[in-house]
């Protein structure tokens, strides 16, 4: 009997139309849990660095986290993995919603797609019955539109459907995979799906998901619900309203957007608009939200309401949105909220990432203004910015004219355009557009997170440690009084002593050593979530979440039957984290790629920054090029990676410290963190 997981993957060869149900090795579960962890392992085993993003040999994996489908609140994430057309690295993008629970109830932990269908198809999975069905009649339809058609033709109104729109079909490098209220948006995995000519996957299941220790598991689930209720009544004081509660930033609920509109930058991640949030704007945007938002929405088995149904026409729900996509189009176009909510409906149907797409369009308009692109590149484009965004979106998703260039994202478009266009693709890390945020003074923790994060968004590495100090030490002490989440008491001291100004403020404080531990801890929490399928919104992302390093080992153990404690969970997580790093190292990622956008901070400290990277690499057990050392790989049970690196000349046999055992012990201790 397998607990929490189903013990089977579905292997689909789209070229040949072959479908197999394959039993998985329980050993891999104990090494990597599931979700991202086992996805990464499959990529290591089966997709060598010679395979590129649009090769049929590239895999596209829809992986459910280990705890998905159990009664664990928030355990609903699908981890989609492939080689990204944008970063050219191992890309993974997560979505909540309803897909992964349905997939597991149909009997599969993962759907592994390879090859390329000769003509557009969609996959229909109904328990043991699986069909590759013709999708020529759906090709060209929107994401939600095609999902609806599929449900109707299958006569299965409750099937979960993940689909691509025009953007994915036309291999736009920032195409998303949409699934009702959720989407796997980052790093262009929708383009890989389109390249495989897979329009959609529809799934419906009716099987049981078992947990190993039911009474214990349900107690933990009930405790988390009680805690969520408690946190709802007791928001965190001293932080911006969207961060005071649990879940992802509560953009659909909270109307106060002063923080985003005045601290984030508008246009092509350029202009900060202090004083923007006037009473007039507040009233008008509140009205917009209250008229257009028809219902708050949750993902499977989660009491949070991070999503919302939005009505832009006569329908009660035209599409669903969540989080910061509320503002990205508005701010890129210097427009208002109603414009943002309206164009997002079209963008969702076309299936594009709502971080990248608006920046790409603003980038195009900047290039026009700078004379790098000319009017001739935009034949027939209307004069006003709002209409221009609609015009550009349409060209991009169809890859028509200039849209074909822009569809590659700012980095690759700049490559094609030349003429200094790279100056304008200024907000990328690892070739991917980031949150539009430009700040003054460097912050060591954030420097490290931006540099070394491999998940294309700062929100997927930052988390439980406050982003800034509070105004007074008293407020900080009030915060730490009730903060059992930290791995060790010293994390509390670091926050208590942090100052807005003075000796203990950024860039000097928190110190490098403290920053290594804070960053490592926050990153590890995200990697745990990505393996279990627990939503970051109940665990790694918000302040004081219900799940943390001290109760997750018990939850995972009670659910899966594995016997994990904090040390072993951290060790296992480090294994997956370094395997992800290794996948990318094999694809050429090096220290030079570990860099934030040059203009992210006004005040930079080149020497300090290099020292920080050195120190953090040491802390991680990586060499000065950001490559896990042989000793580290050995300690993590990744000797097969080390051997491959030696064979490829990525690591040299002579560059290891002679006392490998000692180094290994050090690496293990770091991997295991500092559990109290």
């Amino acid at each position, binding site marked *: 009997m397998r607990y929490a997981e189903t013990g089977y993957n579905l292997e689909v060869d789209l070229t040949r139309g072959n479908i197999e149900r394959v039993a998985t090795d329980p050993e891999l579960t104990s090494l990597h849990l599931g979700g991202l962890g086992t996805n990464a392992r499959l990529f290591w085993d089966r997709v060598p660095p010679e395979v590129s993003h649009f090769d049929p040999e590239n895999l596209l994996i829809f992986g459910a986290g280990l705890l998905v489908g159990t009664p664990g609140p928030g355990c609903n994430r699908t981890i989609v993995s492939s080689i990204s057309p944008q970063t050219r690295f191992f890309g993974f993008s997560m979505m909540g919603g309803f897909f992964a629970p349905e997939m597991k109830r149909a009997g599969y932990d993962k759907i592994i797609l390879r090859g390329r269908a000769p003509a557009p198809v969609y996959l229909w999975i109904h328990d043991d019955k699986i069909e590759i069905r013709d999708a020529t009649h759906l090709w060209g339809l929107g994401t939600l539109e095609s999902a609806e058609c599929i449900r109707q033709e299958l006569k299965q109104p409750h099937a979960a459907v993940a689909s691509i729109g025009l953007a994915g079909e036309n291999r736009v490098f920032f195409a998303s995979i949409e699934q009702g209220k959720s989407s796997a948006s980052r790093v262009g995995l929708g383009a890989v799906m389109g390249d495989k000519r897979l329009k959609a996957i529809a799934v419906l299941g009716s099987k049981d998901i078992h947990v190993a220790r*039911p009474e214990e598991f349900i107690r933990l689930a009930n405790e988390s619900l009680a805690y969520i209720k408690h946190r709802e009544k007791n928001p965190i004081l001293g932080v911006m309203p969207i961060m005071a509660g649990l879940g992802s930033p509560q953009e659909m609920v909270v109307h106060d957007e002063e923080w985003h509109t005045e601290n984030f930058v508008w246009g092509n991640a350029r202009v900060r608009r202090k004083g923007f949030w006037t009473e007039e704007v507040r009233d008008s945007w509140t009205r917009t939200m209250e008229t257009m938002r028809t219902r708050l929405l949750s*993902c499977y088995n989660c009491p949070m309401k991070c999503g919302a149904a939005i009505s832009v026409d006569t329908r009660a729900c035209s599409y669903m949105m969540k989080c910061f996509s509320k503002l990205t189009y508005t701010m890129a176009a210097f427009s208002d909220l109603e414009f943002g909510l309206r164009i997002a409906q079209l963008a969702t149907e076309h299936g594009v990432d709502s971080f990248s797409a608006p920046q790409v369009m603003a980038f195009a308009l900047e290039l026009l203004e700078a004379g790098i692109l000319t009017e001739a590149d935009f034949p027939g484009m209307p004069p006003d910015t709002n209409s221009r965004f609609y015009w550009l979106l349409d060209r991009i998703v169809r890859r028509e004219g200039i849209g074909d260039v822009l569809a590659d994202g700012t980095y690759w478009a700049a490559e094609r355009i030349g003429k200094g266009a790279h100056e304008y693709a200024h907000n990328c890390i690892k070739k991917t557009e980031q949150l539009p945020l430009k700040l003054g003074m460097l912050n060591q923790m954030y420097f490290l997170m931006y540099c070394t994060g491999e998940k294309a968004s700062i929100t997927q590495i930052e988390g439980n440690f406050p982003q800034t100090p509070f105004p007074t030490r008293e407020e900080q002490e009030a915060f730490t009084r009730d903060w059992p989440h930290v791995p060790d008491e010293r994390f509390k001291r670091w926050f208590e002593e942090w100052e807005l100004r003075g000796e203990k403020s950024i860039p000097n404080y928190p110190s490098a050593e403290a920053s290594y531990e804070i960053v490592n801890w926050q990153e590890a929490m995200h990697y745990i979530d990505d393996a279990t399928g627990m939503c970051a919104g109940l665990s790694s992302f918000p302040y004081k979440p219900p799940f943390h390093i001290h109760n997750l080992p018990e939850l995972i153990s009670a659910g899966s039957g594995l016997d994990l404690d904090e040390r072993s969970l951290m060790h296992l997580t480090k294994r997956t984290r370094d395997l992800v790093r290794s996948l990318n190292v094999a694809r050429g990622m090096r220290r030079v790629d570990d860099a934030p956008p040059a203009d992210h901070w006004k005040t930079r400290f080149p020497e300090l920054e290099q020292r920080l990277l050195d120190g953090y690499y040491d802390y991680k057990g990586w060499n000065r090029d950001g490559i896990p050392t042989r000793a580290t790989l050995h300690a993590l049970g990744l000797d097969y990676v080390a051997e491959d690196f030696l064979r490829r000349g990525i690591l040299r046999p002579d560059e290891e410290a002679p006392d490998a055992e000692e180094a290994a012990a050090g690496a293990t201790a770091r991997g295991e963190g500092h559990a109290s």
Partner: protein
Amino acid sequence: MSDSTKKVVKRIRINVDKCNGCRGCEVICSASHATPRYSSVNPSRARIRVIRDPLADIYVPVFAGEYTAAECAGRDQYTIDGKEYEECAFCRASCPSRDVFKEPDSGLPLKCDMCESDPTLEEPLCVQWCLADALTFERVEVDAGAGGAAAGVAPEEIDAGLEALAKTYGWSKVIDAVARMSRNGNR
């Protein structure tokens, strides 16, 4: 027997406007009815289902009611506030016309038991897990009456019924039948 007997009825109030569509009610219902308790989850076995159509903004939690051997002769389709609800959206029956409220492997009907258990729960589990308060629970006192539906029936209506029988079979046969059935305790 007095007509003023009271009884306590358990009631779950369903506010479809508050439902966020998370299906937590289905999860905990199926888990609590698993054997051993909480050992597995499967919304297909749940005795509550959220009938949902996200693009129509429809979310209707429905509890499993009585089994019916035959589907209805006709179907209802409601339009409320401009939203068109699918056929049978509000129906609680485990019925041949649809998949819900049947054990997926045996096809046996499922019915909500209001989480009757020993010790008694304060609230059914679906209500406890609905943090959105789309499901709320109350105990209400209602008139039990002397004989349920018959309690409010006027004597002359029964007279009319018996007269109709007498016309067909004759009084003596009707009296015999009443006497025989009373003797057998068939009341």
